[in-house]
């Protein structure tokens, strides 16, 4: 847990007004899960306040799905404790399941049932009153009312994703867990999807959404970054960036021979004091922990290429954090 930046308050958003009690709908500490000898999630702490959208980021296999599954009661943690919606994570898994909506990474609806039948099934399982109206409402909202008799398996990726979301919010859950919901969905559908998520959050639903996309992270109120099973950063985007201690320079221009700044990535990354250098179009992004050292590192090219100080991007921060974590894990296992 050494990688977690200290924060003012657990949700990472603005501090609560005085007298306001922070309503933590997810509040878990030390969550750990091992499969075989491998620790997939390692002592993860996570608190999310009601109505917040928390982006859950991390590389593939970092333990995002496992953490989500532990929160919604699909997996029992090997260590750790906490509450979800005020209910004990271990003892009240069934009660938690009734108030949480979980959208799996893989399309998990019945492909041999129609759209309406799928929704109807979930309405029945949750014992929703006014079932037919609820399903009809959901179909209208989805814009699928005219296609309600179509088999779910025949839908395109974007529509499947919308249907899956509709199915897991049908029972008005207080928490919505989304596991890489927009993977393989076109930008238009993604935009609409996020508008919908914000609408739900405005209505008081708490959303924990895992994603790979940086632009999606920026749509969240706050983010949590997990790599190799460990929580490395937590807070608002500004907090995570400033907490990383990373400084950045942006270089633009051309060398005398006409080579663009972007071609210098490898040469500059090899210099001391540089954590990474990455081309962005024709520009070059150089990051390191110390601004003075950065200026020194780019000095040989500074006469032809203009380097100005910049804010490191979220991607810079994550890659930096991930490299650090990798090193740690090697040390731990040695």
């Amino acid at each position: 847990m050494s990688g977690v930046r200290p924060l003012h308050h657990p949700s990472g958003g603005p501090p609560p007004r005085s007298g306001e009690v922070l309503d933590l709908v997810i509040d878990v500490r030390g969550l750990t899960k091992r499969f075989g000898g491998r620790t997939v999630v390692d002592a993860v702490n996570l608190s999310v306040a009601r109505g917040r959208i928390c982006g859950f980021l991390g590389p593939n296999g970092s333990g995002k799905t496992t953490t989500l599954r532990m929160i919604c009661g699909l997996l029992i943690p090997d260590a750790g404790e906490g509450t979800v919606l005020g209910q004990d994570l271990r003892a009240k898994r069934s009660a938690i399941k009734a108030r949480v909506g979980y959208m799996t990474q893989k399309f998990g609806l019945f492909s041999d049932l129609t759209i309406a039948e799928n929704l109807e099934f979930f309405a029945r399982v949750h014992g929703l009153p006014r079932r037919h109206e609820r399903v009809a409402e959901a179909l209208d909202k989805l814009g699928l009312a005219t296609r309600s008799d179509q088999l779910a398996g025949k839908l395109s990726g974007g529509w499947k994703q919308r249907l899956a979301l509709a199915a897991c919010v049908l029972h008005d859950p207080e928490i919505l867990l989304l596991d890489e919901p927009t993977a393989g969905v076109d930008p238009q559908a993604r935009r609409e999807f996020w508008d919908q998520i914000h609408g739900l959050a405005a209505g008081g639903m708490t959303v924990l959404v895992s994603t790979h996309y940086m632009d999606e992270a920026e749509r969240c109120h706050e983010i949590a970054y997990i790599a190799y099973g460990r929580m490395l950063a937590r807070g608002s985007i500004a907090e995570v960036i400033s907490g990383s201690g990373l400084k950045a320079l942006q270089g633009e221009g051309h060398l005398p021979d006409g080579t663009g700044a972007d071609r210098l990535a490898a040469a500059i990354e090899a210099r001391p004091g540089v954590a990474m250098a990455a081309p962005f179009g024709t520009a070059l992004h150089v990051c390191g922990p110390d601004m003075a050292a950065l200026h020194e590192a780019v000095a040989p090219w500074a006469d032809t290429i203009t380097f100005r100080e910049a804010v490191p991007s979220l991607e810079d921060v994550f890659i930096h954090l991930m490299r650090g974590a990798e090193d740690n894990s090697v040390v731990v296992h040695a």
Partner: protein
Amino acid sequence: MSATPLQRIGAMVFKEVRQMLRDRGTVGMMLVMPLMQLMIFGYAINNDPRGLPMAIERGDNSVFARSIDAALRNTTYFKVTELVETPGAGDRLLQDGKVQFVVTIPPDFGRDLVRGRRPQLLVTADATDPAATGPALSAIGDAVSTALGHDLIGPLGAPAAGPSPVELVLHRSYNPEGITSHNVVPGLLAIVLSMTMVMLTALSVTREVEQGTMENLLATPLRPFEVMVGKIVPYLGIGIVQLTVILLAARFLFDVPFAGPLPLLLGSTLLFMVTSLGLGFTLSTLAQSQLQAMQMSFFYILPSVLLSGFAFPYRGMPVWAQTLAEVLPTTHFIRLVRGVMLKGWGLLDALPEMGVLAGMLVLLGSLAVRRYQDTVA
């Protein structure tokens, strides 16, 4: 707002029935399969086993009676397992299925024979499985005349010279005409139900896992037990349809007699169906994929066909195979169906076999619930 277990089970049942009806191929197969098998097995199977268990009820201890005893023991057709003296004890053994034949040597058999009175020798056969009795019956006649041919010499030679000195009275119990289909059709009920119940359940659960829908089911408030019941109920419905088809065919196509009480038959069939469903569910918790579930089902169904006494007489098998057969629910159910339909078993006769099935059900049920968790991985 939150659903009762019954509502949740109802939701599962509803979903399962819908998915089932959507899959027309499977529905068709389930209805056509029993008919096809009826036609194939009902008319095709026949065979000639040996080493059948026999009881000799000896009311007479003359040299002739002992010769017949020895001769019967000498043929490969029989294995004399019981020697009883009290009248009626043999019938009981037959009814319980402990022996296939009872040869009754009446009191004063030797005296009457010497006096040339052509005493009767009663052979009672359990003809529920005619394959097991037909050829064996003629072997009894041969054995008797051989035995007496050696004994009736010298002054006693006279009776031997004429027609047979003994009157062989044959009584085919339970299936007097020795019609093979009377035996095969009830057995088919067991086989068809095994195949449908075990395989379909095993596939249905594994399919949910494979298609990723199980994770969604488990994320809802559905409990494992509710998922199980929800999956089992529709298949029970299918089983009842198959039962009806086979019973109607048995009655109207094959004229199988129906000696025992119908409620007992229905009760034991229900018990067997639930046991098979439990087995299918247990297999599904072991299988990683639908293909594996299919293979496991075959692994169970093949011995069920071959060892249970359906395809070949149970008696004809070596002891190890009989032991193996005892582990299969199908073996016990086949005895129940044949017992109730052909032998007219009452509840008391059926209890031992039903007890075995119930024991298996408890074992499989608890295993399935233990293995089927409400968590993933």
